[in-house]
């Protein structure tokens, strides 16, 4: 049996690693996507004062610290049984939507987008942000940098620090904004909305007008029929910060809708001895292994999943795009993994529109930003949508609010099973007897998991380059028969 190793594919709490095993006929027997690192926040957060967790758990991920900061703050609110005043909630939501718009931008232009904008068959050396700039025009590069710069500026005002925010605490936020600050943020938000529209347009022009790309999106090699998860508001519209978790089945019918404190009735995690990451699955369906379909508890939690699990977007421009996407791709739900990129730009626009609405809300400059907790702290769950999936923080404390238990189900982790399946499917589709394994083969396998924007393919990919990929084909004695490098 031959073994192909892709090591490292780069980070997700460390560096991922793919092993592909071929059988004697040269076909894919199995694939393993391993996560080689563990940091243990669940354990070392125990004993800490619970109000410190929004400042500690940010360090789970420097790419999306905002998501951990918010999920953690919401879990703290729940632990203390407090409801932050409306201004505080709006400030948190404003921060969160600005972050979402920025994060999706980086992913779309620098990481996932190049596959489409430059083209999936373009040489690796061009499938990067520089290639994007070359194709779409020089001002795009400048715009992407400006988008980052503006979002980071807003995050610093609202969160205290641009990375690893500090302002959310049980019962509210530590700092409000002045009229002048609100005016300034409004200007940024107007710019974000324009940028969102521009991005949608670019996606239309480059991807949708190219039948080859649309076919690729819809091709069976990149589809999985799974359950879909996403946070929704009272009207079942997408919400990143608050609401109930809604899960739809592979036919798009509501399977369950649960509030944060019911997550344990709905989500379980499966452990495998060959990887440090656990596999979450729908408890009521059960773990059937890495397979799709209605009988398998595997679900996805991605931008596309959120759209699949909702009845629409909360803002007008994004709603129009939402309708367009489903009519183009043949109705809900969409199973095509690569359509996640489309969903992502729709969310980008929606986040920008939301942010603009929030900053224009007269309450945003209110001064009542804290509810001081008075009840004895106990236990609480906080859920937000991270860009990479539903994020759950669950804390239990003693009567003094010192943490006794922590459970975390992190964005990308939700998608561990589907990512593994997508890699497997792509590998099976591409590696065939007699067909040489080339760099192009690797590109396609990479594309399969890149659509999920797993954290290892994080927003840091803004410089020219690619994730390092090496495939080694071993024979049964471990001798290297062949080696392909990505150059």
């Amino acid at each position, binding site marked *: 049996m031959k073994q192909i190793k892709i090591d490292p594919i780069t980070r997700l709490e460390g560096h991922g690693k793919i092993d592909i095993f071929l059988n004697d006929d040269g076909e894919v027997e199995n694939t393993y996507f391993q996560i080689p690192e563990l940091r243990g926040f669940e354990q070392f957060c125990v004993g800490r004062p619970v*109000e410190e967790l929004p400042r500690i758990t940010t*360090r789970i991920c420097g790419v999306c610290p905002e998501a951990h900061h918010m999920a953690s703050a919401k879990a703290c609110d729940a632990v203390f049984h407090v409801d932050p005043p409306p201004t505080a909630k709006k400030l948190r939501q404003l921060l969160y939507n600005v972050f979402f718009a920025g994060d999706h931008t980086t992913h779309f232009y620098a990481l996932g987008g190049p596959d489409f904008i430059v083209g999936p068959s373009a040489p690796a050396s061009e499938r990067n942000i520089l290639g994007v700039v070359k194709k779409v025009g020089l001002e795009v590069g400048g715009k992407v940098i400006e988008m980052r710069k503006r979002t980071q500026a807003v995050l610093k005002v609202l969160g205290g620090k641009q990375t690893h925010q500090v302002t959310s605490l049980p019962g509210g936020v530590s700092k409000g904004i002045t009229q002048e600050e609100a005016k300034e943020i409004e200007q940024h938000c107007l710019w974000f909305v324009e940028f969102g529209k521009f991005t949608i347009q670019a996606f239309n022009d480059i991807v949708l007008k190219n039948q080859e790309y649309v076919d690729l999106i819809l091709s069976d090699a990149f589809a999985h029929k799974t359950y879909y998860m996403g946070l929704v508001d009272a009207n079942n519209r997408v919400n990143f910060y608050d609401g109930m978790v809604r899960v739809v089945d592979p036919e798009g019918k509501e399977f369950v809708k649960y509030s944060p404190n019911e997550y344990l009735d709905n989500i379980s995690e499966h*452990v495998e001895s060959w990887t440090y990451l656990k596999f979450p699955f729908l408890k009521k369906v059960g773990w059937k292994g890495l397979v799709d379909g209605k009988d398998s508890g595997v679900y996805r939690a991605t931008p596309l999943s959120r759209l699949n699990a909702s009845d629409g977007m909360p803002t007008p421009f994004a709603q129009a795009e939402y309708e367009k996407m489903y009519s183009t791709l043949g109705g809900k739900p969409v199973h095509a993994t690569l359509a996640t990129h489309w969903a992502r730009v729709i969310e980008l626009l929606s986040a920008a529109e939301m942010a603009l609405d929030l900053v224009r809300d007269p309450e945003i400059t209110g001064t009542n930003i804290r509810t001081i907790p008075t009840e004895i702290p106990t236990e609480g769950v906080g859920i937000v949508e991270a860009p990479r999936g539903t994020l759950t923080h669950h804390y239990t404390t003693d009567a003094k609010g010192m943490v006794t238990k922590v459970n975390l189900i992190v964005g990308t982790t939700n998608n561990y099973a589907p990512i593994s399946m997508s890699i497997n499917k792509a590998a099976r589709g591409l590696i065939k007897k007699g067909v040489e394994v080339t760099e192009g083969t690797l590109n396609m396998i990479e594309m399969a998991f890149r659509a999920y924007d797993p954290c290892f393919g994080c927003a840091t990919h803004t410089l020219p380059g690619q994730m390092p990929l090496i495939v080694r084909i071993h024979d049964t004695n471990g001798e290297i028969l062949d080696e392909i490098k990505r150059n």
Partner: protein
Amino acid sequence: MAKPKLALYWAASCGGCEIAVLDIHEKILDVAAAFDIVFWPCAMDFKYQDVRAMEDKSIDLCLFNGSIRNSEAAEIAHMLRAKSKVVVAFGSCALEGGIPGLANLTTKEDILRVVYKDTPSTVTQNGGVYPQTHSKMKEGSIEIPELWETVKSLDQVIDVEYYVPGCPPQPEQIWAVIEHVISGRPLPPKGSILGATDKTCCDECPRDRKEKKIKQFYRPFEIQTDPNECLLDQGMVCMGPATRSGCGALCTKANMPCRGCYGPPPHIVDQGAKMVSALASVIDSTEPEEIERILDQIADPMGTFYRFSLAHSILRRVEKV
């Protein structure tokens, strides 16, 4: 003249240090222009093999972030050490273990038990499945690195020339360091802290300080603080006095106490010990019983005083008891 060669690497890192490098925005183009970036796994396509093939000391500057948690990271640290003229421990994790270093409050065994067994969403099969370094699958064998019991800072594993503190280092400070290197001005003596200043966080903090006399400590969620007065004066444990200046007192400006991410101030080895002296001198009591009562109000001294620096503190980790 050939451009100087730059390498960036992350070990047990959250990625925030890398983001911070990108947060110098357009100036990143100056970096790309001034340096030949030879290794940056998160952003560019160069492989370990390529670095391994390089001559010793052929990399001029290596910015290394993240703490060291397993043999794989240590191996790469050693390799980069051999290939680099100057290695910089970049960010709190590399410098002093950082937040991942809080794992030194507990044990590997407890971490594995909690993550793979005790957490309520985890399904345990036959008494619990734990990740194994070598797994024999029916198709063949696959490996993952073994976790270390104790998290280490970079300089506990390899020799380091300079240190840049912060979680993450602030972009202006990063730019100042890079700009210094680009300018060709002579580098400071080995062991220097770069990208920070030589006072304490309090010196950068705009809040008014009085003579401190504290009878009661509060936790951040318990009270609404005055935005202009020193937080410590108001009874909130603030790491300002035991923290190096350099960030511009970002947290206290946002009405939250400092948690010490810039590491200990000049000439201080142990941030926790420093904080013990700082607080001991402001507690307003000479009665042993009252002192004990006041000390009781300080929630979690270990996790607060050593939030970022436990792995690099004098005692490095908590003993199994």
